[in-house]
């Protein structure tokens, strides 16, 4: 999943002073004002022109009226992480317009509703360029008809698409295609929106002879790629991984994962003959019920999963411990948001690493996977189910709001060709063979993973009793100290087996690297871009290990041991992964240098660059 394009792909800038295919554009609107369509059209238009693009929606935790910012980044280099610096600002929200401009950096180009009078004396900044547009007036022209009146709020957004298209050189034809796609070709709606774009185009053409120096030019770096949210990708992954039971309770930012699963199943899991579904999706009454249902289904032998966010994981803690101790497969997606507590439900964070890894009371540890892109959401969903059934234990898949809910440019998803790994299950025939020698919790293969049977297996000798209380190898109730120790020691060994089974890290080394960067999940984008900057602009080459799963496996361990200094980049306050790394590598624990961003915004490259440079200075001073 390299984030750097070949120069060929990257295309080249044109006339000097003009920046081509490398900018961030931010649209400030109000929540629920229906700007999403316009924003996606803008984003898709650029995407369709072959330019790598990303869209990030910064929205409030309410349904209507509060400020929302949508940021579109175009990058010929394929950097699709968040960029701190905004180049073009579209102010559609009267509530925030003045503050938006006040906080804009010098050189920003500001498109805004004329009547806000941002250029009035006292307000005007002479280090930004203004493009006033009478949106309110314009929109009336095409929505004069009374039946259109209540469409104005929506349509007005399409006008800025046109204005920006003209000012930045976006091909209007692409916008038309994007609109048709967005509105699923509803003729009347399409026409109305297209005319709104036209209105913007014409106005800008007529009134702004000088265009914005940030331009879009065609290149060919998006062919075959998708624009998709991580949650949808994960849901699709669950469908193709053969998940047949889903129990969930809505929570931002995870709801759309299960909702997408429902939609995909309505299309892909319907029995042609009966019209019935080959899947059961249960909207539970809360997260305790969701995880209980998932364990029940996993115990019965189905591939079952749930999706939630931090508060849900906290609630599930007791039952997750049951899953660990009774050894029941389960897949739990945690689309992380900002905690503690309710925190900032619409901001992103990697704050649940310790909660998931050490979840529940007593001694318990759990495998955790870290997808970093939509395609990994898709593929790791499959890996998670294989892992859960192979290891017979709950497996966490940690994504975050940034990955789950934002629009990502993604590689196409590879069709899974490998058979499902259903793990160690004895059928009736196999039970006949092993008979009394079989023990539900006996390690016969040396990998500490026992064999299980499924309820309903037609055999007089197949049944066993699952319990969260003490049990021996035969799954019989036991309070014997030796049985207990024997069992939990095996569970510890099983966790070591997991080290060899979780997804391997993605390692990118650079000649002459004096140290390494270690990161996971969506930190990848800020880290890889920052790493390129450090090498290119500061002559600081760094190796890079993108951790893709816990527990730490041999490859990661080897990479860590090879490095004298390791910057561990995380999107949480307490550098939670560092806690785990120090525990795993006591003899070199001092090598880990935490780099943290935890303000609820996706990690940006600048944060990484600044942190590394300041650390180098510090250590330089030391001697």
């Amino acid at each position, binding site marked *: 999943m390299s984030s750097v394009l070949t120069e060929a792909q990257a295309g080249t800038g044109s006339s000097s002073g003009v920046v081509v295919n490398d900018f961030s554009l931010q649209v400030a609107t109000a929540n629920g004002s229906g700007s999403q369509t316009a924003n996606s059209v803008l984003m898709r238009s650029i995407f369709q022109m072959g330019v790598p693009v990303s869209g990030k929606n910064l929205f409030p935790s309410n349904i209507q009226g509060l400020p929302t910012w949508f940021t579109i980044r175009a990058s010929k280099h394929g950097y699709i992480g968040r960029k701190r610096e905004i180049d073009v600002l579209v102010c559609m929200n009267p509530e925030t317009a003045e503050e938006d401009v006040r906080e804009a950096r010098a050189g920003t180009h500001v498109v805004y509703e004329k009547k806000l009078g941002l250029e009035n004396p006292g307000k005007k900044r002479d280090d930004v360029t203004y493009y006033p547009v009478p949106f309110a007036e314009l929109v009336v022209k095409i929505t004069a008809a009374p039946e259109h009146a209540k469409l104005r709020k929506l349509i007005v957004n399409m006008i800025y698409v046109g204005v920006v298209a003209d000012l930045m050189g976006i091909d209007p034809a692409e916008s038309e295609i994007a609109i048709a796609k967005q509105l699923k070709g509803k003729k009347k709606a399409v026409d109305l929106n297209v005319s709104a774009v036209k209105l913007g185009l014409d106005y800008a053409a007529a009134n702004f002879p000088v265009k914005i120096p940030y331009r879009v030019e065609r290149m060919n770096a998006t062919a075959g790629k998708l624009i998709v949210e991580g949650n949808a990708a994960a849901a699709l992954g669950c469908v193709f991984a053969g998940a*047949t039971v889903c129990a969930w309770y809505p929570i931002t930012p995870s709801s759309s994962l299960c909702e997408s699963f429902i939609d995909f199943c309505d299309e892909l899991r319907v029995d042609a003959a009966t019209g019935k*579904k080959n899947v059961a999706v*249960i909207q539970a*009454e809360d997260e305790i019920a969701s995880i209980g249902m998932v364990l029940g289904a996993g115990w019965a032998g189905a591939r079952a999963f749930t999706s939630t966010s931090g508060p849900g994981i906290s609630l599930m803690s007791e039952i997750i411990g049951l899953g660990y101790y009774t050894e029941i497969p389960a897949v739990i997606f945690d689309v992380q948001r900002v905690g503690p507590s309710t925190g900032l439900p619409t901001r992103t964070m990697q704050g649940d690493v310790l909660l998931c890894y050490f979840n529940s009371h007593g001694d318990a540890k759990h495998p955790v996977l870290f997808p970093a892109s939509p395609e990994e959401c898709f593929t790791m969903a499959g890996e998670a189910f294989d892992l859960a059934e192979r290891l017979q234990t709950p497996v966490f898949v940690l994504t975050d709001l940034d990955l789950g809910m934002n629009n990502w440019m993604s590689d196409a998803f590879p069709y899974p060709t490998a058979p499902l790994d259903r793990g160690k299950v004895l059928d009736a025939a196999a039970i006949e063979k092993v008979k009394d020698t079989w023990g539900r919790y006996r390690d016969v293969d040396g990998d500490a993973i026992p064999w299980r049977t499924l309820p309903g297996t037609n055999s007089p000798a197949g*049944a066993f009793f699952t319990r969260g209380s003490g049990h021996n190898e035969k799954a019989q109730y036991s309070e014997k100290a030796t049985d207990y120790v024997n069992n939990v020691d095996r569970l510890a060994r099983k966790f070591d087996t997991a080290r060899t089974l979780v997804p391997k890290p993605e390692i990118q080394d650079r000649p002459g690297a004096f140290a390494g960067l270690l990161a996971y999940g969506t930190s990848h984008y800020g880290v890889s871009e920052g790493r390129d900057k450090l090498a290119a602009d500061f002559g600081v080459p760094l190796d890079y290990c993108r951790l893709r799963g816990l527990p730490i496996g041999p490859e990661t361990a080897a990479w860590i041991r090879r490095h004298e200094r390791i910057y561990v980049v995380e999107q949480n306050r307490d550098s939670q992964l560092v806690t785990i790394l120090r525990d795993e590598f006591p003899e070199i624990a001092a090598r880990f240098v935490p780099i943290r961003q935890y303000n609820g915004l996706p990690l940006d490259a600048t944060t990484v660059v600044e942190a590394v440079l300041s650390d180098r200075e510090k250590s330089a001073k030391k001697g």
Partner: protein
Amino acid sequence: MSAQPPAPSTPAAPKTNRLGLPKAEYEGGKSTLCLGCGHDVITKQVINAFYEMGVPPYQVAKFSGIGCSSKTPAYFLNRAWGFNGVHGRMPAAATGALVANPELTGIGVSGDGDTASIGIGQFVHLVRRNLPLVYIVEDNGVYGLTKGQFSATADVGATRKKGDVNEFVPIDLCSLAIELGGTFVARSFSGDMKQLQTILEAAIAHKGTSIIDVISPCVTFNDHEGSTKSYKYAKEHETPVHDVGFVPYFEDTLAEIPAGDTKDVPFPDGSVLRFRGVGRDYDPTDKEKALRSIHESHARQEILTGILYLNPAKPGFSEVLGATGTSLVNLPLDVVRPSREALERVMESMR
């Protein structure tokens, strides 16, 4: 206490059920409950009911929460799979398992604490879903396993051994279940074995959630004078609302209760429940009357027993979910993994 299967049955075994299985095939491990605990009596009736109904033991899934009562699934049907989960959350586990494999016959055993105190939330939502499950609450009004604190079914004015009095409105799980749209709601008493076994047989045949609240005295912590869940009190206050007999679809006579001034309620599978009045007129299919009778019984300090409300026609959970109704556990790969074309189609919509 033990999940170890007993030795395979010997054909020599004398009496067998319609599957040719002897009662032994339905027995469980040795109980570790107190001598005389009501729960052990219920365990016996569960064994009888499954034996009489001729359910293949390996097709049964047993669920429970935590408590003395919740231990009992280890004491019956060793040939069946057991899931002894955490406290108060049995319904969720049962829901997941039985949705994953609707071909299993599910039985859940819980206690009044496990269900009415910590577990009332899952109880409420389970009833609403009408998941096919025989749900037994072994109701002794206290937390036995933690040494006798009042549970949410303790009656106002009931005293503990210590002498302290319960002041909080008890939850009547039967009227509550009816209020929530329950389709099979019964109450019995561990001392009334015949009635209990009949109710259990009917519950096994019912294709929805069967709530069975069984007064089951805790001889160690709640069998004293002043308790309203003691053997003595229950014996004196039990008030059956009818005689009830059950003819499973695979039998055709109903010896105990000959037709006459009886009411028959047919099940979709052809089984029949037959009720004969006992003085009072009680119609187990009339929701409002049932509720009123139960509420009035509180004032009269009667423990109404029998099948208090019944609606066998209502569709079960899987049906409502629109699922195939067959096991989702081992579907062939080509069924659960859509085609390459399907993936392409979906991805195209994302371009």
